[in-house]
């Protein structure tokens, strides 16, 4: 879970950097998009590097989902000992200190998975094209975020990503043995807040900027 998750975090940071190029105008954005396909040529074929990244990401997603499903089934078996809820008491449902981010980790992950499929159909293949389809990646983005409901959908999805990473980055550090003192715990928590904050805000800047007409 930890390694596959961190691979995806690394990809998200690169993806976010690419998105912010939308502020440099249509030529720069479309050139960047095209450049991703020719990167590494002639050593790699056209779209070669892109396909390597896609395969690695797909493997990471499969590993992440497989581990999550297997572990969740084991956890359910360990706690579902009688019909109904585990504890009959209705009090302290949040325990001593369970956070919203840790509560929503599993279902948030399912929402993010569905969002990724929607997102690929929307901006990669352009099968879902609110505001009009276009061969130019720049125009696709502008057309999409000209619609308020698309801005809303992406906002909800990215908040889910933010919560997922808040707990996920911290948990990855725990799993890889990085939390071995009070200071390390504080640093790991700060890192998790920073990564989730930067990714959520960084991804949300372009949709809102486009919606309010500050781009193009």
């Amino acid at each position: 879970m930890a390694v596959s998750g961190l691979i995806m975090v690394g990809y998200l940071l690169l993806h976010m950097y690419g998105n912010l190029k939308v502020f440099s105008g249509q030529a720069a954005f479309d050139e960047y998009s095209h450049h991703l396909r020719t990167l590494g040529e002639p050593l790699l074929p056209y779209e070669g590097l892109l396909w390597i990244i896609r395969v690695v990401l797909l493997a990471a997603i499969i590993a992440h989902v497989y581990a999550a499903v297997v572990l969740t089934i084991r956890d359910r078996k360990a706690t579902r000992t009688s019909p109904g809820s585990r504890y009959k008491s209705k009090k302290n449902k949040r325990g001593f200190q369970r956070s919203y981010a840790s509560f929503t980790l599993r279902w948030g992950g399912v929402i993010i998975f569905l969002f990724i499929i929607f997102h690929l159909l929307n901006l990669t293949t352009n099968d879902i094209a609110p505001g009009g389809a276009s061969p130019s990646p720049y125009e696709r983005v502008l057309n999409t975020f000209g619609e308020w409901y698309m801005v809303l959908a992406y906002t909800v999805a990215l908040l889910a990503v933010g919560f997922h990473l808040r707990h996920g980055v911290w948990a990855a550090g725990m799993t890889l043995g990085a939390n071995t003192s009070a200071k390390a715990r504080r640093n790991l928590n700060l890192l998790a807040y920073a990564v989730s904050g930067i990714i959520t805000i960084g991804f949300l800047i372009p949709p809102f900027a486009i919606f309010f007409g500050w781009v193009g």
Partner: protein
Amino acid sequence: MKITIRAWRQANTSDQGTMVGYELDDVSEHMSFLEMLDVLNERLTLEGEEPIAFDSDCREGICGMCGVVINGLAHGPERTTTCQLHMRSFNDGDVIDIEPWRSASFPVVKDLVVDRGAFDRIIQAGGYISAPTGSAPEANNLPVPKEDADRAFEAAACISCGACVAACPNGSAMLFTAAKITHLGLLPQGQPERAERVVSMVEQHDAEGFGNCTNIGECTAACPKGIPLETISRLNRDLLGALAKGKD
């Protein structure tokens, strides 16, 4: 104090079990939680009813025998064992829900008593030093850095009460297992078997049917001995090292 108790009643392991309510009119705030249950049980016995079964031994907070889930929290609202919890932590007129530790690996024996044999089997899987060490050696023969000694002692404070499992949303016993791994892994005597220990204890943990750690930290918050969450990270570190060395 007037208190209403809703306690889990279950005749035996195969019984379905249910919550049963009892009214107590004259509870002193100086009573410990278990004394309050003793008073209730005396009354039930006089009325010819079956008293509520619960575990307890030292009643000093050091043996790890007692432990129930009070209002959904393992060992109740204070960070201590159930026996060291007092009725002054509650208010007049409160309704208090009392349930046993809930885990597939801790079958209910009767009412609030669960079988924690799974913990013994995890310890048997490697939570000890196999070399006979004789009597205590001269303390200065084997220097241990102060920081390591403190951390090892902190982990060794685990009393195996099982609150970590009861509090964990996944029913994981990782904090219990990690406390022993950390305790022995930080001391020189624990080094020769360090890699085998972590692998076989984690295997036994999983074989007992405990859940997995999702790093939420409820275990540490519930732990009456304050075993830190970082012990789990140390366990993970040892496990990664052992797996990298090809121990399995």
